[in-house]
């Protein structure tokens, strides 16, 4: 269409204006060559170096961090161990003290038991004595009473017969 309109108008599609092709191709080649040399000589090696350096720094830092972490873990382990030791020591002291106190207590208990037993035996003895005395007194009183009763009834009290009768009555 463009060809049949006025001549001043350029070709309809500038992309198909072949007269400009050598010019465009020439400048494209110049541009690409310039960019290629800028990139391959300066830019790319520099960026690669920076990236590699950063990678190196990062991995170094990571190694250092790893080391620090190991150290921290070691410290933690030492702390745990100290804690466990202290706990065991405390346990031991507690057990010892408890044993000591128990021994004291046992001794005191034994002593007290012995004393109580002694006192109980003594008391038993006294009770037995008192009972004995009481028995004797009862016999005497019974004998005297029997003798008095017999004489009051008008009989001559025979001491031996009264004794025998009282004893038999007391037994019976």
């Amino acid at each position, binding site marked *: *269409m*463009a060809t*049949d309109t006025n001549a001043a108008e350029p*070709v*309809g*599609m500038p992309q198909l204006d072949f007269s400009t092709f050598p010019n465009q191709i020439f400048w494209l080649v110049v541009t690409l060559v310039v960019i290629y040399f800028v990139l391959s000589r300066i830019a790319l090696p520099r960026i690669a170096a920076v990236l590699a350096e950063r990678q190196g720094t990062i991995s170094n830092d990571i190694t250092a961090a790893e080391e620090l972490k190991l150290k921290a873990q070691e410290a933690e382990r030492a702390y745990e161990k100290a804690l466990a030791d202290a706990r065991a020591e405390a346990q031991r002291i507690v057990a010892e003290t408890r044993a000591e106190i128990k021994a004291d207590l046992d001794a005191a208990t034994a002593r007290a038991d012995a004393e109580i037993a002694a006192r109980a035996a003594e008391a038993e003895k006294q009770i037995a004595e008192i009972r004995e005395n009481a028995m004797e007194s009862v016999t005497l009183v019974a004998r005297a009473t029997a003798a008095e009763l017999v004489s009051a009834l008008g009989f001559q009290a025979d001491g031996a017969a009264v004794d025998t009768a009282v004893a038999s009555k007391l037994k019976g």
Partner: protein
Amino acid sequence: MEGDIVQMGAYIGAGLACTGMGGAAVGVGHVVGNYISGALRNPSAAASQTATMFIGIAFAEALGIFSFLVALLLMFAV
């Protein structure tokens, strides 16, 4: 008069050529849609296939661009 008919034919042809772009649109949509439905099923594999998706888009789109070019040629260069 004869020139007018030629011009009319060229313009009609240019318009018809533009229907090809719809095909390209369908193709690109198909590629991306399938990529996304695949990516939602298996998101871990999605990243590795992005480049493949763009290559697929490029191939689908190229044909639409051809029809566009035909339209332009009919409009300006015939």
